[in-house]
């Protein structure tokens, strides 16, 4: 069945916003002044969680390390990629400004919470089960974090959407 015009429009807007947002965060001044400090914050929170469960880690910038293992949190591991998907899908979807703002804030919280769990888990795997690290780092957690962003968008869109947009009619 062919897609409705609104569905096609959603996809076009989604990709335009995604490209624009990517170019913005890839721009050096934004990367250096926003993304890198944000990633350092992610490292700090994850380091605190690890210390909370008794791991003797130090955090320096975007690096979490102990005598056993160390992780450097780069783009792709800071949850920003999932937040870009969330941003593009929520902004592309027809909804009120207020609904979008709420969706973006709550979605960012969900993504970053899961991302902190990812970093903690990856550190523990690297320290205690290193043979599993690559698989979980490359595929498992990356997909789960993106999947959580998409799931959040679907739940949010079902709440705010006119019914005709939630389905292909």
């Amino acid at each position, binding site marked *: *069945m062919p*897609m409705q015009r609104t*569905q096609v429009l*959603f*996809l076009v807007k*989604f*990709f335009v916003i*995604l*490209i624009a947002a*990517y*170019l913005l965060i*890839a721009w050096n001044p934004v990367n250096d002044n926003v993304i890198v400090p944000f990633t350092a914050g992610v490292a700090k929170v994850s380091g605190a969680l690890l210390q909370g469960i008794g791991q003797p880690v130090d955090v320096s910038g975007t690096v979490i390390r102990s005598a056993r293992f160390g992780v450097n949190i780069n*783009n*792709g591991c800071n949850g920003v*990629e*999932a937040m*870009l*998907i969330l941003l*593009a*899908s929520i902004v592309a979807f027809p909804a009120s400004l207020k609904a979008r703002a709420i969706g973006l804030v709550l979605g960012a919280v969900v993504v970053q919470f899961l991302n902190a769990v990812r970093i903690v888990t990856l550190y523990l795997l690297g320290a205690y089960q290193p043979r599993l690290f690559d*698989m979980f780092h*490359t*595929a*498992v957690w*990356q*997909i*789960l974090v*993106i*999947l959580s962003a*998409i*799931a959040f968008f*679907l*739940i949010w*869109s*079902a*709440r705010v*959407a006119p*019914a005709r947009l*939630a*389905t*292909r*009619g």
Partner: protein
Amino acid sequence: MPRLDWRLAVKAFAGFLVGLAVWALLSPLYNRVIAAAAEKTLRLFERPPVTQLRPAADNYVTVDRSDFDPRSKRPAIPLHDLTFNVILLTALFAAARRPFSDRNIGGFLAAAAALALTHVLGTVVEVMSIYVAKLGMWSTIHYSSFDRNLWGVASHFYRLVLMYAIAFALWWVFRDSGAEPARKRRR
């Protein structure tokens, strides 16, 4: 207020596990197919055609050219890093209300075929990003700074976010209209 439908979440997670297992098991074979298709695509635009993509250990593909100095080291690409978005696609289709309906399976197969084409293009972009920037003086002589920016950004964009966006968009296009999670509506 719509809530998380736990049955759909469980189906999505089961789909995620199946996708992960299939991807892990079939990657060595699948990567050969993708490498061969990417090599053919690259050679279409080369005069003379020189690129050779050779499958190597641990799901890597070695990038070779017949005009390279035989003594120089060959760069390699971890091809499984470019293809694991198939797990996301599997999880999304598995979350359908009727995951084994003909329409959902047909949609999944169509989306997977389209995804395979993007894997070929992703590999081409990755090889080009090596040619333009990672081969020292050879890159500087043969490619402009515009080429370096273009292919470098394309490669980074694909790896960081586009590969997931493609899987999401293909699901959005090919999903069964009577089966997607978003269909649950207020009444």
